[in-house]
């Protein structure tokens, strides 16, 4: 589905990632971990085409991401659901409209998707908050809304950057459960987190592989987790 082949990246300073290779097989569940500033967000951005590698190649759905024009990039974004570390909502729209935004911008009539939307809101437990605006949401509600938006177009791949970043243990279990459910539906899932207890909890529910960034390299984490 998504494949990095000997990818290197730097923001203009020193090399942040070098010789990173990873392959996300369809239906797989991956965790990406590493200390803050190691380059987790950067690696995810390379996976969904927000950044182009300074060396090596990134491929998604058998297309070279480097070679995509802006329109093709937009279509790639519709096939990969992303939960951003800072959620990225439009504050002038309601929670419901934000969740429906991928539908709106792809020209779908959201009045015809109302049943889907309502089901999705119930799934993430935000039925009551549909008409609030994003600044009115709590941290956990924001994360769940972001997750709902990332799956509204039924993408094959879901990439989540610190989805449990600022929520309590109970809420992080709730979010994890949603991600696991998506994986059981056949979606490919990649989650960046520095929360090792989350990874341990997940390992009881799914067959998850854990990747760790250290010293600019990507390593397969061992059984110590």
């Amino acid at each position, binding site marked *: 589905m998504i494949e990095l082949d000997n990818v290197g990246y730097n923001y203009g300073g020193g090399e942040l990632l070098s010789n990173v290779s990873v392959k996300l097989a369809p239906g797989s569940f991956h965790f990406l971990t590493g200390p803050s500033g190691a380059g987790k967000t950067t690696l995810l951005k390379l996976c969904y085409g*927000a950044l182009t590698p300074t060396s090596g190649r990134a491929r998604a759905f058998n297309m070279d991401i480097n070679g995509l024009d*802006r*329109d093709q990039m*937009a*279509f790639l*974004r*519709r096939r990969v659901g*992303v939960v*951003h570390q800072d959620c*990225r*909502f*439009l504050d*002038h*729209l309601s929670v419901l*409209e934000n969740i*429906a*935004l*991928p539908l*709106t*911008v*792809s*020209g779908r*009539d*959201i009045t015809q998707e109302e049943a889907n939307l309502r089901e999705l809101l119930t799934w993430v437990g935000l039925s009551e908050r549909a008409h609030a605006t994003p600044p009115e949401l709590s941290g956990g509600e924001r994360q769940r809304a972001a997750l709902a*938006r990332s799956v509204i*177009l039924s993408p094959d791949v879901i990439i989540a950057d610190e989805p449990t970043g600022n929520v309590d243990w109970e809420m992080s279990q709730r979010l994890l459960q949603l991600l696991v459910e998506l994986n059981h539906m056949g979606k490919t899932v990649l989650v960046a987190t520095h929360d090792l207890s989350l990874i341990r909890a997940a390992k009881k529910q799914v067959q998850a592989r854990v990747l760790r960034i250290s010293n600019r390299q990507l390593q397969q984490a061992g059984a110590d987790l």
Partner: protein
Amino acid sequence: MSLSRLRNLIIGDAQADRVVPPSGFTAQLTLFVSGAMAFLAVFALALSLASGRLADRWADELARAATLRINAPAEQRAAQTEAALAILDQTPGVASARALSREEQAALLAPWFGAELPLDNLPVPQLIEVIEGEPGYDATGLRLRLQAEVPGAILDDHTRWRAPLVDAAQALRRLAWVSILLIGGATAAMITLAANAALAANAQVIEVLRLVGALDSYIAQAFIRRFTLRALVGASVGIVLGMVGVWLMPEASREGGFLTGLGFQGWTWLLPLLIPLLGAIVAFAATTRAANKRLGDLA
């Protein structure tokens, strides 16, 4: 542009309209500028039509004949007429010259003295109609020659003094058209500025829209639609006010000439209706250009 995009542009899509937050000051700027410019354009248009009409009318009168009057005692009248015709015949710039017949002269005088006027008994001057050629004749030279050879001849070319006025009216019409072009250009520049400000203010929104898979054409459309509609609304208000202003001008009279004729007549009242349409087209083009450029830069 495909038909569905055109449909979307006109009818719009309530959802798509909401994705870009309404931005106060660029909206007001666009409304005000297109309204004010449309108002000015109505006057420029009225000016160009009025000066055009005036130029046509005066030019038409100019093209008509000058008159040569022969004031001579009855017994010399025929001889002097002969002589004058001979001179006119030789004068360069005179296309043709013809003595009016007795009946024609009677007809000219009839409105004043009645049809039964016994012309033969009255010392009525003989009239000669002179049609000017292109280029015209030298009036001063002709007068001098007539004075020497036909003492009773008086050349009346009263419409000639209007020639520079016709030029002035035509120049005024050209100026009015230049003004309309400048108004269009200034509108385009201001709307480009407003659109750029709106695009810059919404850089974050644009980024989020891209993250969720919006095509650049979709994002551009949201801005283009907004600015086009604002220009259309602003210009419509502007022309209504402008047309009321023109309508309140005093009625045109033939003698009042220029100032009172500064209005629309008949079907030309429909012409200002084109202004909002043109304004919308200008806004559409300006915003399209600005959006495409800025979205390219933001890539």
